[in-house]
């Protein structure tokens, strides 16, 4: 017999609640990762996110230092503060990763995304699309008598807003680059 008098039956608590002492509030963070541009490095980063169940809202990657063979991966992710901390620590463990920066907390930063939107239509809708594009500083990079392709740069929110406006005006297709981000100042 247990001297502790174990209660029988189930406990009411969720069993392995891993995060009771941390905030449950989810935040969006933009993380910049400097990596050796070697085979498989992107697979490592993506595999980390899928394997550990983290979110990727946006991901961009390109070589930024040709001599040093370094690529910059910019990831926008969502999670509780504890998950965000884990993501950064886990990224830091990947051997070809040189630096991990959380642009959301390390001072202010600028974020830009580029999108191409194809809008088809004629008559009033076509005129209205052009007028709105002008307000959003989107450029026409291709046009036919029935369609435009707009190029717009800005924050993801701005692109979302533009795409929402274009939808009733004949939005057919969208291609987005994902976010590129840099910290402000020297």
């Amino acid at each position: 017999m247990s001297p502790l008098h174990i209660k029988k039956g189930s406990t009411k608590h969720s069993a392995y609640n891993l995060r009771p002492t941390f905030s449950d509030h989810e935040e969006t963070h933009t993380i910049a990762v400097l990596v050796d541009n070697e085979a498989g490095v992107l697979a490592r980063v993506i595999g980390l996110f899928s394997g550990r169940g983290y979110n990727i809202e946006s991901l961009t990657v390109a070589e930024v230092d040709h001599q040093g063979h370094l690529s910059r991966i910019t990831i926008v992710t969502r999670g509780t503060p504890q998950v965000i901390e884990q993501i950064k620590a886990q990224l830091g463990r990947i051997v070809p990763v040189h630096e991990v920066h959380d642009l959301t907390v390390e001072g202010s930063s600028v974020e830009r995304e580029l999108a191409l939107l194809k809008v088809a239509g004629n008559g009033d809708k076509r005129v209205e699309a052009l007028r709105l594009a002008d307000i959003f500083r989107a450029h026409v990079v291709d046009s036919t008598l029935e369609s435009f392709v707009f190029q717009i740069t800005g924050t993801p929110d701005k692109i979302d807003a533009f795409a929402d406006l274009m939808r009733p005006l004949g939005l057919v297709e969208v291609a987005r680059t994902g976010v590129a981000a840099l910290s402000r100042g020297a």
Partner: protein
Amino acid sequence: MTRQMTGAKMVVQALKDQGVDTVFGYPGGAVLPIYDEIFQQNGIKHILVRHEQGAVHAAEGYARSTGKPGVCLVTSGPGATNAVTGLTDALLDSIPIVVLTGQVPTFMIGSDAFQEADTVGITRPCTKHNWLVKDTDKLSAKIHEAFHVATSGRPGPVLIDIPKDVQFASGTYTPPAKTPTGHYQPQVKGDMETITELVEAIEKAERPVFYTGGGVINSGPGASQLLRELVDATGFPITSTLMGLGAYPASGKGWLGMLGMHGLYEANLAMHGCDLMINVGARFDDRITGRIDAFSPKSRKAHIDIDPSSINKVIRVDMPIIGDVGHVLEDILKVWKARGRKVNSEGLSKWWTQIEKWKKVDCLKFKQEGPTIRPQYALSRLEELTKSHDRYICTEVGQHQMWAAQYLGFEDPNRWMTSGGLGTMGYGTPASIGVQIAHPESLVINVAGEASWLMNMQEMGTAVQYRLPVKQFILNNERLGMVRQWQELLHGERYSHSWSEALPDFVKLAEAFGAKGIYCDNPADLDDAIMEMINYDGPVIFDCVVEKHENCFPMIPSGEPHNKMLLGEASTKDAIGKSGAVLV
């Protein structure tokens, strides 16, 4: 000094320059050039296993018992995929191993060539890092880098995939000293401010406890030495995870025994009731914490770990110290001594009085009566009859593993090889072979369950071939005992497929392998049988027939906190709630 040579020769040269004396491997088409080089030299001994999984576990046993990285060589395709379980095992237990795989020639990669598998793709999530080397000129540098990555920071398995044409081609060999090891240089010194904060906490604590883990073993024998000094000088109690056994001696005065799901009563209650928890190289595994929101509710927690991702992963800590256990303990001792070696003696003596009360519960007590051997008795006798030997213990996975952790005492680090994180049945036999290779004169025992043991029993062939006197001590309950125990506690005693049916005659099996078989089912004969096993100069399979329905206690049911421990049979009915039942 640079030299021209073939890729295959480079492999052997690089291994020699890395101080490798033993490679565990299995040949095949894609590694034949390397095998040809191995044939033509004497510096490196190759151990031919019977299955590539065995090669990796043997390398793990070698690594854990020596502190040096273990090395494997296997072929492409099925050779590589057979290594995956071992790689995952080494990843979860932080064991440094270097696995070399052959690959189809570079010009055939991607063509579904014979025995082609995407080895770096398959092993990416189960290695610390891996490389596909397509250029012979880079091969030696990559091998040196692989050893660096495997052994520095948090150790782990690495893999190098070498296409066959790269093995045949000639290139320039780069010796290790001149090889830049790259930017991968984990931090080993801890932050002095936090260390000082911890020392202040040590000075004041009324109910402190050291909670130590595999990281102490990883850090090397020096770290264990420093740990002993600190524990004994402060007079604090100390418990350890399964992976950390031996870092502090079982005979030491601060020792509380293992903690966790099958840990000791006093260890778990000390963790639950402490006001200062000092985690040294352990990772708050779920076998330890039980229910997170009820884990050690009143303590301030310090955590020394070399891997930043271990910090705050599961449990929020107050004093995170990122660094190597040895370095950090050295600094803690320095600061603590410089400040006058203070502890809260009054608080401590009350704390020990409480702990002594918990110890009196004597949670491991059992009675050996009747004609059947109880597994606890078998292990107590094994302990008694072997503890004075120069002894290494391996285990398989299951109840016997937990009993071994409970009833055997470890006085030194690197003497205990077990699969903790992955819980790989089939680990123990090959691991015992790796240990025996590294310590030919020592007594190496694999404490096994019959079901686990069957998973890699082919390695008995390896033991016999290389005259390795490993002792396979099988606690035969004719059950998948740990599974059966969970079915009893959780699934209404419906024992679905947890029987070991159609078991072989282990004595005949031993003889068929050319080993010695010993059978014992009588408590009165046990001592003699164990002595016969110890004294036999060669590999032994010991079929120790034990009580079939024994359960392993203490046990913290899944989803319960430390102070909700089951100590014996009577209290087990419905002890695991619905929310606990979904957990493993």
